């Protein structure tokens, strides 16, 4: 019962945050609602028994990535979103496509695991076992992420650095 109550409360907070992200026009408000989503997701992970993931969620996602977002919003001095007409074609195709996709997916999920219940803290989440997986079975992906991070560093340096002579006024085409 406690499980269900906690799930419902934080699930609702989570969905509210997600919807708020869509409704808000100022990016900083959207960013803060995303933090709310991530925080309540961390609680959901805890309910499932994934303490490791919950901790990483708070530290990496809410802590590092969102700070980066807020930093860039402040750096670029982003104002409230302008209401401009987007591509009509994209909306015409995108919205029905998304509706059909979500209905199909929802149907598949309903069909899949009707009432299989999960107990509070169902996951075996001992850090030692996770370390065994991460540094043995998934050693190669783990090592390969170092290349990924290296690329990300190079990319950030290349793209964010100011080119020697920027020709802002002269546009091509």
């Amino acid at each position, binding site marked *: 019962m406690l499980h269900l109550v906690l799930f419902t409360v934080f699930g609702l907070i989570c969905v509210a945050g997600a919807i708020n992200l*869509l409704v808000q026009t100022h990016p900083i408000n959207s960013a803060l609602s995303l933090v709310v989503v991530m925080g309540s997701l961390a609680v959901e992970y805890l309910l499932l028994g994934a303490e490791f993931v919950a901790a990483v969620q708070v530290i990496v996602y809410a802590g590092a990535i969102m700070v980066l977002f807020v930093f860039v919003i402040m750096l*670029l001095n982003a104002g409230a979103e*302008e209401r401009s007409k987007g591509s009509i074609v994209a909306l015409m195709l995108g919205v029905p496509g998304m509706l059909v996709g979500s209905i199909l997916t929802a149907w598949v999920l309903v069909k899949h695991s009707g009432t299989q219940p999960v107990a509070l803290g169902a996951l075996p989440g001992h850090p030692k076992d996770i370390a065994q997986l991460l540094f043995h079975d998934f050693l190669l992906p783990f090592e390969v992420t170092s290349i990924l991070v290296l690329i990300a560093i190079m990319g950030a340096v290349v793209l964010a650095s100011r080119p020697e002579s920027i020709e802002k006024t002269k546009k091509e085409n």
Partner: protein
Amino acid sequence: MVPLFYYLVLSGILFACGVTGFLIKRNIITIFMSIELMLNGVNLSFVAFAAQWHALSGQVFVFFVMVVAAAEAAVGLAIIIAVFRTRETLNVDKVDLLKL
């Protein structure tokens, strides 16, 4: 006891919210945040399925997804800064030198 289905639906809702945001938002940074929302939805389904199968590996996947999301965020925000420098706008509809 909570049915696993509830968790999956929650993750599906988050994913769908992300897709909607990607389609309707006009600010580049908010669009990027919508993508992060989609990834969060995926992470929740990974953990929920891991609980269903009693498999530890689901948690490890989430860890990898977070690493990738962090790398993506660093590069993406750098690209946004580069675009802002040349165009002075964050509205996707005004980034239109190349016609779509």
